[in-house]
């Protein structure tokens, strides 16, 4: 008789996989109502957050001190905040309702502020808004997006550009070089996915037809590939050849989020039907591993991008789960995935728990945004 347990691969114990975050080290309190989105800046010094109160805020990451805030939402929630990648400028993007804002929070030095403003302003020279296409019957076609100044009140606060699209923006995702970013407006039908070029103030709609309602998008970390998740599938497209490359089928009923491993060949997916899936893109279009640890929807998944083999998910059950996920270079060998820690503390409010997560660019620290109105830093 063979003990079946002895045939299972031996997984390392969590304590052998340190470091990973274990305790809540800082609380960020100030938002009224849910915090929907948050992001740590590329230098790892500031935390940006946005929430139902219509404000975008920037905090000192280690102390939890709020440094700056602007009300961009008016009556609308801020659904997403994302920093532009790169260290040449400090630019934060945020979306409330159908407006996307590009801003330079006044926490930076004059030289960087000037460089950042120059990057934002350069596109005004292209005046793309002026060259509107005409429809067949000779009427002016409504542009897919309008790039404008948001008005003196916001400009005084450092909010410098407003891009208005047709319906509510839920997702912003930057290309690593910092000139393109994509947004998702799930209810916009044909124009649900838009790609914006910062240097030209140009907005383009890359897909004439979409196979479902887009949920979220991401640029590949190194190749010219673009990933679009609908409720059930994730498609990767070659942006240069303008063709579909692959259809990934996680087997989830409703995808909420996904993230691409910095190595580029692996992918994690989170779903509202409580599934967390790991895909090896070399191996199959089906998941290599399916996990169901949470009792409620998973809203966000994210890989560490600064050298630690870590990833995390965030759930409406109020917890985050931290995983060790080591990708091996050997094509034949699969990634080692070990759940190492459940981080609890966020209170569940109106059936919503943790809305968003991000990792520190260098350290094994993560941050979470809660429906309870707090952000938390975990170390």
């Amino acid at each position, binding site marked *: 008789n063979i003990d079946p347990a002895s045939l299972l691969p031996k997984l390392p114990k969590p*304590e052998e996989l340190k*470091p990973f975050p274990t*305790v*809540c*080290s*800082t*609380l960020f*309190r100030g938002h009224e109502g849910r915090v929907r989105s948050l992001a740590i800046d590329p*230098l*790892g*010094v500031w935390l940006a957050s946005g929430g139902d109160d219509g404000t975008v805020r920037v905090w*000192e990451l*280690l*102390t*939890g*001190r709020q*440094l700056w805030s602007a009300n961009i939402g008016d009556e609308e929630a801020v659904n997403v905040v994302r920093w532009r990648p790169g260290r040449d400028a400090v630019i934060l993007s945020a979306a409330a309702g159908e407006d996307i804002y590009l801003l*330079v929070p*006044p*926490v*930076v*030095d*004059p*030289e*960087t*502020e*000037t460089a950042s*403003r120059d990057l934002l302003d350069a596109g005004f020279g292209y005046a793309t808004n002026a060259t509107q296409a005409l429809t067949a019957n000779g009427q002016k076609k409504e542009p897919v997006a309008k790039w404008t100044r948001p008005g003196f009140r916001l*400009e*005084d*606060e*450092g909010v410098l550009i407003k891009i208005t699209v047709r319906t509510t923006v839920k997702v912003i995702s930057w290309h690593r070089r910092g000139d393109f970013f994509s947004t998702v407006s799930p209810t916009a039908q044909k124009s649900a996915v838009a790609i914006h070029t910062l240097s030209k103030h140009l907005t383009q709609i890359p897909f004439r037809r979409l196979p479902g309602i887009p949920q979220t998008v991401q640029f590949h970390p190194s190749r010219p590939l673009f990933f679009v998740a609908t409720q059930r599938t994730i498609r990767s497209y070659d942006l240069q050849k303008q063709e579909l490359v692959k259809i990934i089928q996680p087997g989830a009923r409703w995808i909420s989020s996904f993230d691409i491993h910095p190595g580029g060949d692996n992918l994690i997916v989170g779903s509202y039907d409580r599934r967390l899936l790991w895909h090896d893109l070399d191996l199959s279009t089906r998941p290599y591993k399916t996990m169901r640890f949470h009792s409620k929807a998973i809203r966000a998944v994210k890989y560490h991008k600064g050298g630690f083999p870590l990833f995390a998910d965030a759930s409406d059950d109020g917890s985050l789960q931290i995983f060790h996920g080591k990708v091996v270079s050997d094509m034949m060998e699969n990634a080692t995935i070990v759940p190492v820690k459940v981080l609890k*503390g966020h209170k569940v409010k109106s059936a919503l728990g943790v809305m968003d997560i991000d990792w520190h660019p*260098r*350290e094994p*620290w993560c941050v979470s945004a809660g429906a309870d109105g707090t952000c*938390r*830093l975990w*170390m």
Partner: protein
Amino acid sequence: MADSGAQSSRYGPVQVHFITNSPDIELPEGKRQLLVPTNVRRYGLSQILNSESMLDTPAPIPFDFLINGTFLRTTLEEYLTTNGLSSETTLNLQYVRSLIPPLFEASFEHDDWVSCVDILSGSSRAGTWDGNEVAAGQERILSGSYDGLLRVWNKSGQTIATSTASSAGGHTVSIKSAKFISPTQIASSSLDRTIRVWKYNEAEDHFSGDLKPVLELYGHKGGIESIDVHGPSNRILSASTDGSIGLWTTLKNSAPAADSTFLTSGPTAKRRKLTTSTSTPQRGPLSMLSSHTAPVTAAIFNPLDSTVAYSASQDHTIRTFDLTTSTLVDTRTTSHPLLSLTALPGISTQLLAAGTSARHITLLDSRISAQSTQVMTLRGHTNKIVSICHDPKSNYGLVSGSHDGTCRVWDLRSSRTGTKDEGNGLVGEAVYVVERDSQKGGKRPVGGEGIKVFGVAWDKDVGIVSGGEDKMVQVNRGRGVTRPDNP
């Protein structure tokens, strides 16, 4: 055997051997061995040592006793039983001047978070540099706040002076660090990326005074987390989130001109009036040292040689710089981001203590010749350690301030061998934990919310002064030194 031995020795005598590292309180050779009853504790042993037949001290010195690196906190009897020792054993008792429990003395209230504190007294650094004098009773506490203001307090908690607002030459946003350079000169640094040097004047009656800006220093591209000063050479060192260390002079006429790119305030700052419009002279750095790869959290002068600087960074390293040539001399890499730094001048010229984000303090021997880098780890804090200061009375003591809402007092003589999980090596535990008085014995909040300590200083005359998120400057001080304490 141990059991029956312990039974029969109850309240019987045990042979002890008194030893010390301090020559001034050493016993004569013939008096070091003694039979003492096993029911004595620290206080009893301290009385024995102070007695006429032993040290015969004119005024009693409170002593603490270390057995095998651990402070005696029970009776000798309990110690023998706990360690399974028979009363036949000769106990080596290392005696040291007692660390007095730092009891709460006072709190001074601010309008906003207190980011840093410093102390001026007759025994403080700025009080003892050439030509400086501070009369007893005229000690001063300096605090910097997130409201952008500096305050100078007397020991009774009266504000003697508050720095000018940004419209009159003050910092435009939060202050992060402030130090006395002399009884009449102060330096401060801020998230506004500047260092400001202030002239401090007190009125005749010492109950009022003013803080006037005399110099603005520009050159950092990020907030300045921490500064150190050296009065005799008029130098300031700064540590910034931009990853660089600045060396500056407080002398207007020998300071280089400020680079105009740093002086131009950005459009947003201009519109929001976050600029100062005074005639305070503006200057640049003597040098900028940019070798760290992440925010620098502390830069200090070697207390024994002001031409040498040490820095601690979130890049996990402690670096040594030769300031005369502006060169990097040494880099020591640790396992965690470092958030605070102090030098312990008494033990070795280069023993450094660094507070980490990983909730412990790393002690490093930064001498290039040192065989092993890591000397000891101090454990017990439950959150980031962001401020650290050495004990002015002991070469072996230090105090740390943490986002867990406590200050902890450590004695390096007290140590044990760490567990495997602690990475083996020598581990020290806190001798005293100083809580926030504002917390009133409540439960420790998650993430230290509301009670984080941001700055701590320790002075022979004033005691332990700390400031934090509770908007309080808190003073703790050892009192009642000859009273028997609890185990």
